[in-house]
C-alpha cells in the first residue's frame, strides 16, 4: 500500500538482517563471502526441491505435508554437507595461517562464521519467499486473503520472513557448535525446530489461522535465538579449555 507501507514491510522482514550485516558482517570481507556462499548453497537446495516437486504441484492442500517434510529434510542434509565443506575450509585456512605465521581461527571467529552462514540462508529465504511477494505492496492497493481477514497478506509475509530469517541465522550457530562438539541434543534440536516451524505455518491455512500461525513462527525464532544465546554465553564463560583461544580478542581478527 503505497511506498510508505511497502518500505515498512521490507524493513520488518529484513531490518534485523540489515542491522546484523552492518554491525557484524560488513567489516570482514571473509564473512561477506560466507554470506554469499551460504546463500548460494541454500538456493541450490531450493532448486533441488523444486525439481523434485515440479511434477506434483500445484496440488491439493494435503500435499503440503509431504512437501514440507521432504524439503526440510533436503535442507538439513544440505546443512550437513555445508558443515563438511566448512571443516575443509577451516582446515585450509588454519594451514594457510600457520604458513604466514598468522593466528589460527578462534572460537569467536567460528561463531561469526556460523552467524554469517545462517544469515546467508536467512536472507536467501527472505528474498525468495517474502521480498518478491512484497513488490505489489509499493502500489496503492492492499490485499487480504479470505482465510486471514485480520492482517494484510503483506504483513503476514513480512512477519513470516522475519521469523524464518532469525530461525535460520541462529540455527546455524547451534548447528556449528553441536557438530563440532558432537552434542547430540543440539544436533537434533536444529532439524526438529526447523521442521516444527515449517509445519506450524500450515496453521495459517485455517480460516483466521494467521492470528495463531504468525506468532507461533516468531516464538520458534525467539526460542532458537535463546538457545543460541545460551550456547554462546556458555562458550564465553569461565571455561578453562577455551581460555587461551580467547586471548587474542583485542587484536584484529585473522578474518
Amino acid at each position: 500500500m503505497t511506498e510508505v507501507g511497502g518500505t515498512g514491510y521490507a524493513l520488518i522482514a529484513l531490518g534485523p538482517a540489515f542491522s546484523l550485516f552492518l554491525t557484524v558482517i560488513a567489516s570482514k570481507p571473509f564473512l561477506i563471502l560466507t554470506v554469499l556462499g551460504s546463500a548460494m548453497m541454500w538456493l541450490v537446495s531450493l532448486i533441488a526441491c523444486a525439481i523434485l516437486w515440479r511434477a506434483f504441484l500445484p496440488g491439493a492442500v494435503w500435499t503440503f505435508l509431504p512437501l514440507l517434510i521432504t524439503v526440510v529434510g533436503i535442507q538439513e542434509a544440505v546443512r550437513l554437507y555445508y558443515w563438511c565443506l566448512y571443516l575443509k575450509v577451516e582446515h585450509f585456512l588454519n594451514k594457510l595461517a600457520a604458513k604466514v605465521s598468522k593466528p589460527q581461527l578462534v572460537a569467536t571467529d567460528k561463531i561469526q562464521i556460523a552467524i554469517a552462514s545462517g544469515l546467508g540462508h536467512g536472507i536467501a529465504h527472505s528474498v525468495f519467499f517474502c521480498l518478491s511477494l512484497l513488490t505489489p505492496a509499493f502500489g496503492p492497493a492492499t490485499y487480504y486473503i479470505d482465510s486471514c481477514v485480520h492482517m494484510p497478506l503483506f504483513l503476514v509475509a513480512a512477519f513470516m520472513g522475519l521469523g524464518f530469517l532469525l530461525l535460520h541465522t541462529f540455527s546455524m550457530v547451534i548447528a556449528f557448535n553441536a557438530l563440532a562438539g558432537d552434542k547430540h541434543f543440539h544436533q537434533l534440536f536444529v532439524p526438529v525446530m526447523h521442521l516444527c516451524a515449517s509445519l506450524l505455518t500450515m496453521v495459517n491455512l485455517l480460516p483466521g489461522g494467521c492470528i495463531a500461525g504468525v506468532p507461533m513462527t516468531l516464538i520458534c525464532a525467539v526460542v532458537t535465538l535463546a538457545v543460541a544465546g545460551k550456547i554462546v554465553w556458555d562458550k564465553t564463560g569461565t571455561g578453562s579449555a577455551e581460555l587461551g583461544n580467547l586471548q587474542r580478542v583485542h587484536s584484529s581478527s585473522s578474518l
Partner: protein
Amino acid sequence: MRSVPDLENAMYQSLQGYPCVRLLNVTGELGCANPGRTKAIAPIQRFQDANSVQLSAPRTLLLPSSALVGFLKRLEEADGSSSSLEQQVAGLLIEYDNLSFPEVAGFSADSIFPQAEFAPYDTKSYQWNPTGSGIMYRRLNFPVFLLHKNSTDDVQALAAKNERVGFKYPLNVAEFNAVMRTTKAGTHTTESCLRENSCLPLGGYSVWSALPAMNVSSPTGKPIVLAIASMDSSSFFHDVAPGADSPLSGMLALLAAVDALAEMGGLETLKKQLVFLVLTGESFGYLGSRQFLAQLKSDSNFVMGLNATSIYQVLEVGSIGQAYDSTFYVHKQASAATTPTLQILNALKAAAVSLKDSTSKPQVKPASPSNPGIPPSSLMSFVHKDPTTAGVVLEEFDTIFKNKFYHSQYDDASNINVEVIASAASLVARALYMLASDNTADTTILKSIQVNVSLVEAMVGCLFHQEPGMTCELVKSLMTPSQGFTTHYVGVFQQEPSAIPDPYYIEDTSRFVWNFLADRTELNRKEWKKFSAQNEECTDACKNPEEVCVASTADHKGRCIVSTTRYVPAFSPRLGYESSGWQLLPLETGDTMGAADPVYTESFWSTIGLQVYLQESSWFDEMVLFLGVSITAFSFFAIICTKAVFQKRLKRA
C-alpha cells in the same frame, strides 16, 4: 494464484465504462474531468436516489442512472450546502440500467430547446424537447463514468462491502484517471487552448454526392434539389451517443432512397439535378452545415460543381424513425419562398398517394402553424443565410419531439422501427424524383421506385448494434472500419482543413457514407455490371482526376469509377488554420450564427481509465513503516549491546 503478476491482477480490477470528457467553448468549459493533474481516488458509496446523498468525507458516488439529473440539479442549488457537497464528490459512477426507469419519463441530456441560440426566430423558449435536462452543457469538476453492465454488478458489490464495514478502512476505492491537457496547461477557453495547443476543434467530414454524376468542371446549370441528412449525435457520455432516431434515422432513409433512385434510369433527362448531403457536427453549433455554406461562398475545391445560387430547393430528412402512426410532418419557415416550397410539399403528397397501396400507407401533413418556425435542424443555417430559402424539414413529430431520448445513450436501435424508416425512405425517394421532374412524373414511374427494406435492416445492424456492428457485410464490402462499434459523436478534426482528406483521419461513419454514395451514384453503374473488367483497380487515388476510388478495403482493392461524391470538411467557420495551428477568427458583422457559435473544442488527454482496489488508510501505512523502522532500530541496538556484553565477558575471562 500462481505468481506475483497473478497477485497484482487480483488486487486491481479495471472497470469498463464510458467517460464524460472536457469540452471547451469561447466562454468557458463544459463536461467533466479530474480536477487537477493527479488521479482521483475515493471509497465507493452507493445511494439509491439523488436526494438521499449525504457525504461526510470524499467519496466516489455510485448512482443509478435515474438519479443523475436530480443529483446534478442538487449541485446547482445556490445555497452553501451544495458547494460543500460538490467538494466531497471525488468521482461519479453511473450504473448501467436496462431502460426500466426511462420507459416512463424519458431522458435527454440536451436542453429543452436544443441549440435555441441558432433559431431564425425569436421564440427561444419554445419547448421542442420537453424531456431535456441540459446536463450536457454543465461544467463538472469531477470525473463521471457510465459503467458497462458487468462492471455495474462488480461495483455494486464493492459498495455493499464498504457499507457492511461501516466505512472503516480498508475500503474499496475507485481510481479515476481523466486528467485533461487543458487543465494541466491552465487554458480554459477555446481561444486560449487552441493557442497553447492543448485542444482540438470538433469536426469531421461531411459527404455530398450527385445523382446522376455531374461534370463538375463544366456544370449544366440545372437547378439543384438538395436533400440533407445528418450523421452525428451527442450525449452526456460521448462514447455512447447512438442517435438512432435523432438524427440517423433520417440519414438511413436518405441512403435507402439513394439506393432506390440509383436503380432508375433516365435521371439525366430530368429538369433538376439531385444532390445529397450528409452532414456531421450538427449537434455542436451546426458546424457542418455552416462550414458547407462557407465553402460554397468561397467556391472551394471541395464543393466544385455546386454553387449557392444553383440550389433551388432543400429537403431535409430529420428524425423519422418513430412515426408509428405513419404520419410525417413537413416543417417550413414562414419566410420561405412560397412557390418552390409548395412544390416540395406537393411532391411529398404525391409520393404519399403513390404509396397508398403499400402496407405502411404513409401520410404527409404540414406542421402546425402554431409552431414558432422550423424545429432544430440544419435548415436553420440555410435560412439564416437566405430567409427565402425554399426548404422543408421532414419529421416524425408535429409540435414537440416524439423522441423522448433525444441526445442520450438510450436513443439506440430499440428507439426506431425499420419498417417506418423504409416507409419514409420510399416517401423521400419518390418525392425527390417528383421534384427532379419538376412535379411532372406520373404515378407509374413513381410506383417503380422501390426501397430495399433489408438494406435498411442491414444498416441498423451495422450502425446501432454491437453485433455485427461495423464489421457487418454491408460495411466490410465497402471499407475496413477502424473499430467494431462506433459512437456517433463527431469527434475532433484531426487534419489540416485544406488538405486532401486522408481516410486514416476520417471517422468510420463518414467513410461508410462516402463509399455507399459513391458506389450507388456511379456513372453507368448498370452498364458497368455487364463489363466488370473495365474498372481500374486502386487503393486510394485514381489516375484519371475525374474518377474516385471506391470500396478499397484491407481485403481487396477498390475500383476507379466516375462519381460525383466528395468529402467536405466540417468545422466551425469561426476557426481558421494557419501554419501555427488553429485560430479563432474575428467575428464578421451580420454573422448572427457566428455570434451564437460556442466554437467547441475538446481537450487533449493521454489515457482515460478507471480501476478499483482495496486501500488502507494512510495512518495504517505509517504505522507499518514505524513498526519496520522500530524493529530495525531495536535489532541494531540489541546487537550492539550484545556485542558489548560478550566483549566484556571475554575480557574478564
